[in-house]
Structures are given as C-alpha cells and as structure tokens.
C-alpha cells in the first residue's frame, strides 16, 4: 500500500461494510459464545427482537420522532442566531472584539452542567431540552463561523475592491460565498454534537425520547433495548450526515473541499 493513493469506489464500499460485518461477528461471538454474561451485554439477536418489540408494541417511533424534533429545533435555533453573529464577528473586527472573549469563555461551559439549572428555570419540558442543545452548539458554531469568515483570502477581497466593490459588496459577494462551504461543513459537525447533547438532556428528567427509553431500560436491565436505542441514534446520525454532505456537494460544486 502506497501512501495517499486513492481506492476505487467499489473497494471503498466493500471495505467499509467489511468492518461492520467484522464488528457484528465479534459481538455475536462474545455474547452467543457465552464469553460475556448476558445480563450485561445482550447478543445481536436479542437486540433485534427487543428493537422490534419497542417499535411495534411500545410505540418507540414516537420517541424517535420527539428526539429528532428536539435536535433539529435546538440546532436550527443555534444556527439561526449563531451563523449571522459569526459572520458579523468575522467581517467586522470591533464586533469580534466585543463578543469573542465572552464566546470563547462560554464555549468551555459544559452544556450538561447546565441541566440542573435549566430544569430549575424551564422545568423538564421541551424548552429545557432545546436550551441544552442550544448552549452546547451555539458558542462553538459562532466561533467556527467567525474564524471561517475572518480567514477569507485577502487577495480576493483586494481584487473585489479594485473592481469597485464597497463594504456591503465585499461582505455579500466575497466573504459570504467564499465562506459558505466551510460554514456548511461546520453546521454538519455541530449537528453531530447536538445528537450527543439531546441524549444527555433526555437521560435526566425526560418523559419521552430515545434517551428516556435508554434510562427506563437500564432500570429493567434490558441491555438489548439500550443497545438498540444507541444503534438507532448512530443510524440517524449517519443518515443526516450523508444528507448534509450530499447537499453541500450540490450547493458548492466549485469548492475543491467538497469535490
């Protein structure tokens, strides 16, 4: 194998699937072969049955829908406020000087640490869940967008100036289009993080959602259901990631990064 030499699409898919198969085989061997106590780790078949019962008997689809709604809600909220603020910070240095120190501080505040406080403020309803996701993603997103916009190629900005662009034109016709693919990529990353925050929020003080099902199953020692819940999150994450990537490639065909 020579470094950096690309593989064919067929080989890539085959290799990617092969590891999933290998992983599944190792899991099946460990559990069905009796090497691991079934109380602590369910085997793949038990998990599949548990998942089926969850979906058909216990209405797990509704929990999935609730969780997706929370993730999307918190993420959209963070994006709608965070992206414009990040753009403003990247484009105008006084705005950056005003917000950057606080945002840098705030992004190290652990979102999960806020949960008890948020329960006091907003109860255990939907507002609290959205706020956890918002706090977890907003500050990170603002900084990533600000850095992206601020690192726009200076020679492109200068070229636009010599073509008669003014401040407004520079922002709209140079900073924004040149940053758009990287901003979309940041959104994709942040959406992934939003998925971890929603589960944390649902593990504590929730009456619905995938995280709530996982805590309930822990009380029942049903590791099959827990694993099924985790797998569902993984599958949804993978699907949304793929959608985002495809969308980015469609939107920014000029960008090398997404080619």
């Amino acid at each position, binding site marked *: 194998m020579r470094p950096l030499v690309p593989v064919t699409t067929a080989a890539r898919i085959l290799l990617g699937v092969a590891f999933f198969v290998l992983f599944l085989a190792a899991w099946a061997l460990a559990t069905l072969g009796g090497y691991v106590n079934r109380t602590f780790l369910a085997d793949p078949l038990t998990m599949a049955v548990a998942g089926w019962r969850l979906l058909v008997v216990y209405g797990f689809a509704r929990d999935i829908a609730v969780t997706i709604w929370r993730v999307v809600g918190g993420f959209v909220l963070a994006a709608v406020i965070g992206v414009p603020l990040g753009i403003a910070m990247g484009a105008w240095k006084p705005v950056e000087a005003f917000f950057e120190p606080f945002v840098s501080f705030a992004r190290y505040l652990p979102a999960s640490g806020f949960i008890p406080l948020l329960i006091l403020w907003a109860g255990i309803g939907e507002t609290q869940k959205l706020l956890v996701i918002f706090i977890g993603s907003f500050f990170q997103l603002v900084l990533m967008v600000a850095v992206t916009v601020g690192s726009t190629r200076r*020679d492109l900005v*200068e*070229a636009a100036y*010599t*073509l008669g*662009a003014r401040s407004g034109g520079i922002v709209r016709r*140079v900073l924004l289009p*040149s940053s758009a693919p990287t901003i979309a990529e940041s959104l994709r990353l942040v959406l992934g993080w939003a998925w971890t925050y929603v589960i944390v929020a649902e593990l504590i003080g929730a009456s619905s959602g995938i995280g709530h099902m996982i805590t309930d199953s822990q009380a029942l020692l049903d590791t099959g259901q827990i694993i099924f819940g985790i797998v569902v999150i993984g599958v949804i994450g993978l699907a949304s990631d793929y959608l985002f990537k495809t969308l980015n490639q469609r939107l920014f*065909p*000029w960008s090398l990064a997404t080619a």
Partner: protein
Amino acid sequence: MARLILEGVSRTFPGVRGGPPTRALEPTSLSVADNDFICLLGPSGCGKSTLLRIVAGLDAPTTGRVVLDGAAVGGPGADRGMVFQSYTLFPWLTVEQNIRFGLREKGVPAAAQARIAADYVARVGLEGFERHYPRMLSGGMQQRTALARALANDPKILLLDEPFGALDNQTRALMQELLLGIWETDRKTVLFVTHDIDEAIFMANRVAVMTARPGRIKRELTIDLPHPRHYTLKTSPAFSAYKAQLTEEIRVESIRALEMTRAL
C-alpha cells in the same frame, strides 16, 4: 496630458517586534500620459509592487499623493483595474460571472453585462469556457480571465502586477502578445510591473527603472519601437540595444540588493 501623477510617493513599513522600520519606497514621482504603456522594471524586493498597490489604493503612501485625472486617490476604486500575480479569480463564480463582477457591482443592466462579458471572453480567446469554474482552468486561462475581468470594467488605467510571472515561458510570450494586441486596439493607459527586461521592452512605450530597496525611479527610458509589435521584434538589433542598456542598469541594482542582504 497627464492621466496619472505620482507626487513624492514613499512608503515606510513599521518595524516588526520593535525592529527598525523598513523603507520600501523612497519618495517617487512619475507622470503617466493618456494611452501610455509604462513598465516599472526593477529587481525583486525593490518596492515596485508596493508602488502599484499605492496607485490601486490598496496601500496608503507614507508621504506624497497619487492624482488620477486631477483628483487625489483615497482608496481602491473601479477607475483603476488591477491584475495580480497570484490567481485572484473568485472560485465560486464561473468565467463569465467573474468577468461580470465589476459590472454587476456598478449596477449595469443584466443584458448589457452579458454583452460586454461575451465581447471580452472573445477578445481573450475563452469562447466555450464561459461556464467553467476557475479551478478547471490552466494558469494562463485564469490570467486571461482576470485581464478580461479588469478590462470589462472599463477602468481609466490598468494596473498589472507581474501578471504573467507565474506562467511558463511559452504561455507568457503568448499572453504578452495578447495584452499588447488589446492595447494596440484600445490604447488603454497601462502601468505594468515586471522584473523581466524582455517583457518590459516588448510591451512598453516607456520603461521606468527602479533602484534596489529602498526603491526609487533612477531612469526613464523611452522605447521607440513601432506598433504593431510582432514577436520577431524580440530578435531585432534595436531590441537588443535596449536590452543591453537595461541589463546593465538592472544588474547594478541586483548586485546592490544582494550586497544589502549580505550586510544584514
């Protein structure tokens, strides 16, 4: 009549980390007449690009001023089109959209934008590539687009900062002929920065030779060669005579520049 006048323009860059300030450009004066094609020729690091950036309004002079058509230059503007040495096409725009950038910024109607863009696409020989993105183009094609983009704006003066410096020799020679052909038709006022003696003689009506850093114009030489110029001119005796003169002038400065770096 003088279109562009530089009056005692100098530039000193502040010192880095408490170091002494760098004088990039000594007070320099230059007068560019309408329809002139002037080459600023000098060794690398002599401040010729700094001078051009000041004319473009991308950098401010420490002393002196730049006057274009009687008005002092305060910042960049569409009246001074520029082509850079680095590739500065907007990567998210197609060739055609790049050429239309300045026109759109000016508020030219879409139909007129399309007409002007098509005209310049043809003049720089990029028919069939209108919908290509810059990353699909070779370096020469990118610089041709950049030239068309600057010209489409119909600037009062065209500023070129070693625009063919990154191209291979053959492409560079063809680009010189292309630009010269455009100039011979339009007689657009041009200020062209280069360190290539052949390029300067072939293109210019007047060559301004700059000294090593801190740069100033030490000599202005009128190139009295007839237009239209053909590439065979480069092997003519008259061309060689100019080349011998300028080679001597530049060589002295290059040696000075080298000695200065040794002294440091």
